[in-house]
């Protein structure tokens, strides 16, 4: 009697079959998804984020040398982790020093300031890291330690026999932002202008990004330029970044 009962009961069979099917499907689908879909999804998300961040960052070149506002897209939290970690930093890329004695030694002036630069760094999981740098009206892209000038800086150093006009971009304060989502970054530019007569002195520039362009403008290879008996006009554009 017991033997007959055991043979005719098949209640558990459908559960086992169902579980086997589910396991088989999972065993095939999961490796497929992990090996194909997830890396492509992450890469696609990062490409989109890079493009959005770059587009919004490059607007800085449109309103320069005036004040403006950037609506910046930062990194993104996806179901498969954080992608395209993005940070924006306003920092010094070097120094400018102008020192002169004017009007027969009656007036002396000395200006030292940090050259302003704004850096957008994007760290990717699936695509190479990339940094865009805006400084003095020019744009540089940096990848794997190599830099390429995308647009040349607008260095304004004009000198004739008896006059010299110099415009420099100086940073008020270093600032930075990183994280996810969107950020609004205000870039405020304010200008100061000084005029001096009959000046003798020097200009010294140490610019880690556009030193070559300064050297060309100063017709120098040492990063400095001396001047004698010139009327000097000095224009300073102060950059302040508010996040």
């Amino acid at each position, binding site marked *: 009697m017991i033997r007959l009962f055991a*043979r005719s009961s098949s209640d558990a*069979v459908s559960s086992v*079959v169902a579980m*086997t*099917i589910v396991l*088989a*499907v999972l065993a*095939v*689908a999961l490796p*497929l*998804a992990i090996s*194909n*879909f997830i*890396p*492509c*999804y992450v*890469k*696609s998300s*990062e*490409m989109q984020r*890079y493009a959005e961040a770059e587009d919004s960052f490059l607007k800085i070149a449109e309103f320069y040398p005036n004040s403006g506002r950037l609506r910046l897209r930062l990194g993104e939290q996806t179901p498969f982790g954080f992608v395209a970690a993005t940070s924006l930093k306003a920092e010094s890329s070097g120094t400018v020093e102008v020192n002169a004695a004017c009007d027969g030694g009656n007036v002396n002036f000395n200006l030292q300031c940090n050259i302003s630069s704004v850096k957008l760094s994007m760290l990717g999981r699936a*695509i*190479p890291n*990339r940094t865009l740098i805006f400084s003095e009206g020019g744009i540089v*892209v940096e*990848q*794997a330690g*190599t830099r*390429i000038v*995308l647009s040349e800086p607008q260095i304004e150093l004009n000198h004739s026999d008896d006059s010299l006009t110099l415009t420099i971009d100086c940073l008020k304060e270093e600032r930075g932002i990183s994280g996810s989502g969107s950020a609004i970054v205000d870039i405020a530019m304010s200008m100061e202008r000084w005029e001096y007569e009959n000046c003798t002195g020097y200009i010294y520039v140490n610019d880690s990004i556009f030193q070559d362009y300064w050297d060309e403008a100063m017709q120098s290879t040492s990063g400095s330029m001396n001047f004698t008996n010139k009327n000097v006009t000095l224009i300073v554009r102060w950059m302040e970044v508010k996040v």
Partner: protein
Amino acid sequence: MGVDGVDFKADSKAASEIIGEMLLLVIVVVLAGVLSSNIASLIPNVQDTAYVDMLAVSENGSVNITHVGGEPLNLAEVKLMLDDEVCRFDDTTLDCETSGRLFGNGDDLWEFGERLQINSSVSRISVIYHDQIVCKIFV
């Protein structure tokens, strides 16, 4: 007659159970295969496109295209559509009617900072990688 009076020839109940199990197994294997292939096709199609950024400058009757960001491109997989002409790379030179050369470190990759000089004033350039257009340039 068999052992203890059981007739093996007449009693075939165990055989049908084995056949049943075998049929179930076949059905399970077939269903799992069919479902798996269907699920694979249900996964959203996200194409693996190369990320690359190019900058083109036209001067003196030639066009310079510089790789200014993204992944390095394997030259064997790169095609260029110059106006209506399709070009491939032969080593670091263009293998088509329009002449051109890649200025770089000489390996088989087009990497960040490397420049392709096209000795013709083309106006429409498409960079095709793995049969996908990764960059379209209008000079």
